[in-house]
């Protein structure tokens, strides 16, 4: 039965996340925007708070919610599960500060990868640890199949060589999930993910990048030089399966994580829109609903148009998360939600800076920060252009060799 309201059982969680956003993130938001590369130690305590929720299958964090515990019992049952609750929590927390959310201990994207494919032994060894994700290289960004980092088997060990960049939380995380090829001649089927413990000899944090936004989150360049890790740190199978199979498995993680990035964009955009609405209200401008679509003040109408865009993004995000919870294939919807929400997030936050005038541009307000933070959301986990390629290929029925 069609209904697009948030169910009652998920509301307390969203309220808690909202309380964290307002009471915990916002007060330290500017502090860690300025103190780039300082670890926000306030987050340790917060992580403990969220630890209290882990057993409740309601919120698994930014990435680790990827594996839903609650599955539909039969075809007719509809579930509002981990993907939706995680997205709702992320929206609220990102309304507080997406940079801080991204550096929450234990909430890394690597956790999503581990949750998706780890075996029992790996779950036990890596559970409860904070895992970052290392995919991008200087020569391979969107084209992640072109990575050149290698993993060579040597007895009971893998030997890693290569360089990874843009590793979110690369310095702070306990574990790094590294994409590497076990046979550079075998194409993308040979790309596997490996878990490297922080501090393993041969792994070196080369430097931290300075960024436009999400400065609270560290972004590392990591070099691997004959870095030896146990053989059983490979996630998934050692077999080089058919070209599509192994890689497709890795890509499937994105079906769960892209709606989460959409949720981040929705959260940041909402922060900007809410603040803009407050500032405009002080100036006597209010949005109006129910009357003509083509009258009213220019600013008031624009506020309503921005809200419509935000709600459009939010509903697409909820649709993608709902499909994931109900085991419906959602690659297209996941990409749609990310493409739309990230685009809107960027447009809305920038427009809010403009419309708020000097207040929007100055550091007394957080508006300018959100406009900087939001840009990354249209880049990581697949750029706007990559999302459009995925959607277009799928709906037009094209292979990647045809629609390039």
């Amino acid at each position, binding site marked *: 039965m069609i209904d697009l309201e948030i169910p009652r059982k998920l509301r307390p969680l969203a309220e808690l996340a909202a309380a964290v956003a307002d*009471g915990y993130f916002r007060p330290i938001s500017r502090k860690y925007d300025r103190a780039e590369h300082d670890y926000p130690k306030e987050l340790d305590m*917060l992580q403990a708070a969220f630890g209290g929720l882990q057993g409740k299958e309601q919120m698994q964090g930014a990435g680790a919610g990827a594996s839903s515990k609650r599955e539909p019992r039969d075809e007719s049952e509809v579930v509002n599960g981990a993907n939706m609750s995680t997205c709702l929590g992320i929206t609220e927390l990102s309304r507080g500060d997406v940079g801080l959310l991204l550096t929450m201990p234990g909430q890394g994207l690597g956790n999503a990868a581990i949750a998706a494919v780890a075996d029992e032994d790996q779950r036990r060894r890596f559970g409860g640890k904070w895992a970052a994700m290392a995919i991008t290289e200087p020569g391979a960004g969107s084209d992640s199949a072109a990575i050149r980092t290698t993993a060579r088997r040597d007895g009971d060990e893998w030997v890693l060589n290569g360089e990874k960049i843009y590793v979110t939380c690369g310095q702070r995380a306990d574990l790094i999930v590294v994409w590497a090829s076990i046979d550079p001649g075998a194409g993308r089927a040979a790309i596997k993910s490996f878990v490297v413990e922080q501090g393993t000899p041969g792994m070196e944090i080369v430097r931290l990048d300075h960024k436009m936004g999400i400065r609270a989150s560290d972004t590392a360049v990591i070099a691997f030089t004959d870095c030896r890790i146990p053989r059983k740190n490979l996630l998934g199978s050692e077999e080089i399966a058919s070209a599509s199979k192994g890689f497709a498995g890795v890509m499937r993680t994105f079906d769960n994580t892209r709606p989460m990035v959409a949720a981040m964009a929705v959260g940041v955009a909402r922060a900007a829109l809410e603040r803009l609405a407050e500032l405009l209200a002080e100036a006597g401008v209010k949005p109006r609903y129910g009357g003509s679509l083509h009258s009213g003040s220019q600013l008031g109408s624009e506020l309503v148009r921005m809200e419509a865009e935000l709600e459009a993004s939010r509903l697409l995000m909820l649709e993608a998360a709902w499909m994931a919870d109900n085991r419906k294939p959602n690659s297209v919807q996941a990409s749609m939600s990310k493409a739309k929400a990230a685009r809107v997030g960027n447009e809305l936050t920038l427009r809010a800076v403009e419309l708020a005038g000097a207040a929007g541009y100055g550091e007394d307000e957080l508006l300018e920060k959100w406009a900087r933070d939001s840009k990354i959301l249209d880049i990581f986990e697949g750029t706007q252009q990559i999302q459009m390629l995925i959607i277009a290929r799928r709906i037009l029925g094209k292979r990647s060799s045809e629609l390039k």
Partner: protein
Amino acid sequence: MSNPVIRGGLRLLNAFAASGLAEEYGVEDRAKELVSRATSLGIDLMGRVGRRPRDDSKPQGPKRRFDLTPTESQDLLRSTLRRFALEVLRPEAEKADVAMRPPADVLDMAADLGLTELFVPEEYGGAAEERSPVTTALIAEALGYGDMGLGAALLAPASVAHLVLDHGDEAQKEALCARLLGDGFVPAAAALLEPRIGFDPRKPKTKAKRDGGGYRLQGEKVMVPLGETAELFVVSAQLGGDARLFVVDRGLEGVEITPQPTMGLRAANLCKVELRGVRVGKDALLGAGLEAPTDHQRVVDLGRVAWGALAVGQCEAVLDYVKEYCNDRIAFGEPISHRQAVAFLVADIAIETEAMRLLVWRAAARAERGLPMTQHAHLAAVQCARYAPKIGTDGVQLLGGAGFVREHPVERWYRHLRAMGIMEGGLSA
């Protein structure tokens, strides 16, 4: 919005963590454990508080979940009407557009299908199990997939039924539903829009004055579907300070009807309806026997749901049409869909159509649950008014010269989709 206890606690926690005191006193782990347990308890408590105080005055409906699955009967209706849209409306649409009226045999077929009955509950002679704005939206979407102009024509009498059922008194519901469900297709239409820039549908300038036992109506309505054939109209007019709805028979003295050629929706036979001192009886006022005056905002909100749903259906038609065209059309030795400039535009149509659909569905579902929906319907209308015309434009552009000639339906859809955001009233859900 959030629990003040948790909020206050978090502020304290923040100060405590930043101070480094926990670390200094060696109680960091202990502190973390406490915090962990406190939040675990807190969320249990909030869950329980959220659940417990049940308001017995409100009926406890089925368990509510976010869900995008139509019911079985909705699904059946939708697929049946979509077939009707594709096999009957699509081939007839061009002729109807030129003739500026829906073809008689299409109307007969709609009557045979029992289109208006679908919306009227059994107790008033219809076939609906219950009234459902969501079902209406799904049906409008299906018809819009065929052709938005014909869809508007076919839904016009049903929209009158909706207005009567929402705002009429018992006697009016019985009498008017019986009339609308008479033999064959009974043309009828809502006449709400007036020819003014920035027209607010809640504040019509058409006036109703008490006159003896009845009313006298004076004003001008435009873009009224099926104007040339409608047996009756539901007209909005200002009575005292309130917007009210009146049932006006076409034969009454002072009712003047003039066809009004428009850019699109020509199959809907849009007309100007002038009311020159038209005298109606006292039972012509919808809800005459009710104490509360008409909630005119609801008239506006549900009108937006219906128009939005039609537009969503039409946008999906554009999407499917350009997909096929761009895959078939060869240029420079390969399908034009192999170019990103083309393919990304198609992807954008898909994204925005889906977003519009979700906004319309949400407004409809809120109406169905009796939740406030004015803001939601407004946002849906704003988004549809922005993107539906864009999709019309992009559709033509993707076909290039073929988009501009009438051999393909896309130029007609371009003209139809411009109506979104202009056509306040005329339809209802």
